[in-house]
């Protein structure tokens, strides 16, 4: 066990995978000698050589497209997109290609690969260094979408993603890179994809969240507890494929639901959670299904703290559904 930050846990996962499997390789912009702009790939080129951890030209389309070709031919690429905001030039390769290759070839060709990328706000990055684009990808059958919120999960989920037979988009909450620390087992272990994590037990209100919103919700839950409201917090961890039964069970447990994410509300991932419940468990609901999200605007810079859901807003929603 080591006490690591989330970004150190990611680094540890990459090293663990590369040590145990020679077909794993890491590439992207500035992931080599510089070690990545967040140091997630620090030391990899040194330990594994330029052939297994290297910088690419400035083309996300190229990074993801090449990763697909490598995966097709037996390597296990773990590529990095420097910021999730810059993934869109690769959107076609991800959505049209990686996600659909197995299907369209009748299983003859597959692309098991991981795309790692930091997402979310909280670093004063403005419009283009702060976005949470998970919903864009979760609407894409064939893709898996994973978001850790603790160092332990970051390592375990990333190792599971690298071993997964399907393409995985691994979104890392950059606001938590250095803000959270926790015990991380040495060596290889996996956290199964598509399993929820119960962060806190509670019988009054269920809050669904993931990534950087988990500690925010925890903070709100503590304040709620002071008012006698006990919050059941579910960290979704794998957004696609989602453990739908688990979500419904957790929703039924309290009959009062809040969904929290940083991304804009409209057509955000929260809508799917609400819709799922409204379709399969509406008779259990004793209050509106509330969403606390980023606003339906681009991500601002100076006022980002007003844009991102915080404990004030989450608590407000918890109280709202509780008192309904």
């Amino acid at each position: 066990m080591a006490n690591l930050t989330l970004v150190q846990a990611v680094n540890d996962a990459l090293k663990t995978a590369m040590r145990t499997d020679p077909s794993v390789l890491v590439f992207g912009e500035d992931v080599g000698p510089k070690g990545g702009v967040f140091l997630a790939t620090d030391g990899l080129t040194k330990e594994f050589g330029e052939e297994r951890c290297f910088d690419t030209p400035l083309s996300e389309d190229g990074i993801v497209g090449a990763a697909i070709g490598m995966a097709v031919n037996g390597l296990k690429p773990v590529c990095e997109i420097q910021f999730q905001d810059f993934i869109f030039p690769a959107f076609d390769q991800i959505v049209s290609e990686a996600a659909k290759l197995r299907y369209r070839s009748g299983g003859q060709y597959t692309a098991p690969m991981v795309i790692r990328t930091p997402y979310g706000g909280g670093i004063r990055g403005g419009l283009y260094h702060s976005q949470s684009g998970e919903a864009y990808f979760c609407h894409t059958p064939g893709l898996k979408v994973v978001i850790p919120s603790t160092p332990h999960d970051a390592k375990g989920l990333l190792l599971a993603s690298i071993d997964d037979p399907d393409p995985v988009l691994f979104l890392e909450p950059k606001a938590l890179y250095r803000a959270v620390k926790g015990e991380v087992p040495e060596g290889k272990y996996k956290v199964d994809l598509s399993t929820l994590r119960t962060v806190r037990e509670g019988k009054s209100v269920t809050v669904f969240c993931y990534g950087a919103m988990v500690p925010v919700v925890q903070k709100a839950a503590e304040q709620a507890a002071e008012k006698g409201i006990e919050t059941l917090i579910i960290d979704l961890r794998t957004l696609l494929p989602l453990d739908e039964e688990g979500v419904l069970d957790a929703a039924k447990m309290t009959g009062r639901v809040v969904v929290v994410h940083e991304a804009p509300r409209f057509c955000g991932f929260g809508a799917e959670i609400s819709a799922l419940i409204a379709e399969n468990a509406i008779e259990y609901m004793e209050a509106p299904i509330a969403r606390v999200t980023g606003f339906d605007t681009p991500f601002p810079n100076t006022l980002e703290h007003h844009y991102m859901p915080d404990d004030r807003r989450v608590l407000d929603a918890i109280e709202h559904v509780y008192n309904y």
Partner: protein
Amino acid sequence: MTATELLSVIEPDGAINGYDPKLSDAELMHCYATMLRVRAFDDTCMKLQRSGRIGFSIPNKGVEATQVGAASALKLTDWIFPSYRDFGMALYHGVSPIEMMHNMFGDALDAAKGRQMPVHFSFVQPIKFFSISSPIGTHIIQAVGTAYAIKQKKEPHVVLASFGDGGTSSLGFHSGMNFAAVWKAPVVFLCQNNQWAISCPSDKQTASESYAIKAKAYGMPGVLVDGNDLLAVRKATMEAVERARKGGGPTLIEAKTFRMGGHSTSDDPSRYVPKELFAEWEKKDPILRFEKFLKKRKLWNDSTRAAIYDAAMVDVDKAAKTAEATPRPALETIFSDVYADVPAHIRKQGQASFDLARRKGDASAGDGAFPL
């Protein structure tokens, strides 16, 4: 060989002036026969489409020499990342018409389980003929990734990435060419310049002197060849393949040819192609050209073509009948192969769908006319 002067090998009289194709007579005849088999497959698909038995096809008339010449430079252990117009490469390497017909009909025996449109083939043997995608250019950079893996694994293979003149404007071309050159990846880029991207002529596609010259932007050799000359295409591809195999990195080959018809069965080229052009290029027919060479080698006489073509037609016809008689893919194929394992939510949707079909019968199939 240069990026702006057209390389030809077969002279008007069939002479090849000292060039040694390094192919046995049988191999030369295989090249020839493959071109005729492409034409037989094309002609049959055209008829099938016109009579409404398949929805769509992509004709190859005029461009057969490019496909076959390039394919002839590859070994079975190499990889092909084809475009939808490249099934001549598959035929050359031994994919059978029946395998292709199952795709044209999208039936239960189609390797891709009827999920893709016709001509979107995918084969893993006898050669790796990568699953064709509709989006233009995406496979070019993927081919480079596969080539990188070859290099990393120290395998002696090469990758051929084939695309059209229109494909050079795509994102995958730009990233693919760039990454390949920086990585010195064992890949050969074949731009089949048939002078049209559907209705867009080359002068609206690019202002460059040639397509081959685009290699300069990436620091790799670029070669312009006569795409209607099978041996010229073979020569250029062979050199590029050998260089790639030796670690010399990628090459861009432009094969200049002409699409002797519509873009697809849904296209009417008379709206945009001047008639004279067809007449001009008819004379440059790649099969005629190769016949002159074969004749000079005494491998060909006036009855050779009909014999091979007719035999090919029999094969293709039989394949079409077999495919047509093959049932549709099972309902289950909608839900499998999305992931390695079927996740719960997809399983549930499948079950609901089977249940509905049981309760309310089959959905209605529509006429399936494809407009492009």
